[in-house]
């Protein structure tokens, strides 16, 4: 595998980012770090899509004068998908941040375990 690392560098980086972000989102107890993890995870996916859309030696998918050969442009679809993905990611991040703000205001903590503890005490 190691010998082929350099031909797949971008894809490997992308999934490494995804994995780190995933673990951060799942396992870290700090809410802000969780949100950062989510952003990393999403960035990994965008990198993955964008890198697989790239083809060596081709133009960006905007018509250049006099070139109408389809083989001269890269695949435009991944760019569109990444754009959609980014917008969705921004929205979800905003919602998560809003939740975090509210939880912090009420429980004065970003630690998800501590918040759970406080809720347990205040509740039942």
């Amino acid at each position: 595998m190691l010998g082929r690392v350099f031909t797949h560098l971008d894809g490997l980086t992308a999934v490494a980012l995804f994995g780190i972000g995933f673990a951060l989102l799942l396992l870290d107890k700090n809410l802000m770090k969780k949100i950062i993890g989510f952003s990393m995870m999403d960035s990994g996916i965008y990198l993955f899509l964008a890198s697989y859309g790239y083809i060596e030696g081709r133009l960006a998918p905007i018509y250049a004068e006099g070139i109408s050969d389809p083989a001269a442009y890269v695949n435009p679809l991944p760019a569109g998908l990444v754009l959609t993905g980014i917008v969705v990611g921004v929205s979800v991040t905003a919602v998560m941040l809003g939740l975090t703000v509210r939880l912090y205001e009420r429980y004065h903590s970003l630690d998800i375990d501590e918040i759970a503890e406080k809720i347990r005490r205040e509740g039942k």
Partner: protein
Amino acid sequence: MMKKQKNDRFASFLDWLENGGNALDEEMQDALREEEPEAPGKQKREKKKKSSDKTADIAKKPRKAYADSWWYRLLAFAVAAALIWLLMEAVDRMPRFGAADTLMDSELTEFYVEHTKEETGAMNIVTGIILNYRGFDTLGETHVLFIAVCTVLLMLSIYGEQDEKKRLAQGALERYFEPHHDVILQSAARLLTPLILIFGLYIIANGHLSPGGGFSGGAVLGAGLILYQNAFEYRKIEKFFTYKTFKWVSVCSLLFYSLAKGYHFFTGANHLDSHISIGTPGNILSGGLLLPLNFVVGCVVACTMYALFTMFRKGEF
């Protein structure tokens, strides 16, 4: 004179925050208890004395924080490593970076490059795809922004009477600390804001010709508004951009977007003539629906960005 007045106001405000704030906290907690039916007070009133004592004991004992222990960190690391290894193995078996012979680069690329100009009038193929061929995705995407704003509004505006005071206090604090006579910042902002806004409009208007479009241009517009709001007082931006503006601009944009897209889908699927000419590809006024759609998307994105920022900053419009 004015400064002194302001200082007085600020001191009294700090006083209120210090004393009133604490009092509010307690009041808030009381309100919370009353609000939630499973309150401890009620349980004790019932004759479940014994069991409630027991639960109280459990509640007092803090749960062991396993998240700090070494094995949890090790486990987290192991999980991440295993996931990354698995994904890397898969990527290693996938087509090479930049290769031209993959399945992904086949008929779709060919079709899009050959047809986008004639069918949609867009020189930027990506715009043609996201606003025409895959316009339904983008319609959904714009509504994701809308629902995010709705949710944040719902979240940050769910304050009871008690919280409302606190919230307003925070807003007042924000207002107090905002720059009033910061010459460097304000003249820079006075200079930059129009340029940024014009640049944003340029990106939106040229979305079908060059890199850009509603989303990127809208983000630039939103950034311009945010800069303006940060550099000047709220009062200044509230002269032309309030909650009402936000509401009506984004709702009208979304309505136009949904209806225009619905019309486009309807005529397209039924093979009717849509009576929308795409003009000469390459001109600014071409591309049929692309230009107006880019504009409404830009409006929605700019409003959303500004609204999210404002909500997070002062919790109200």
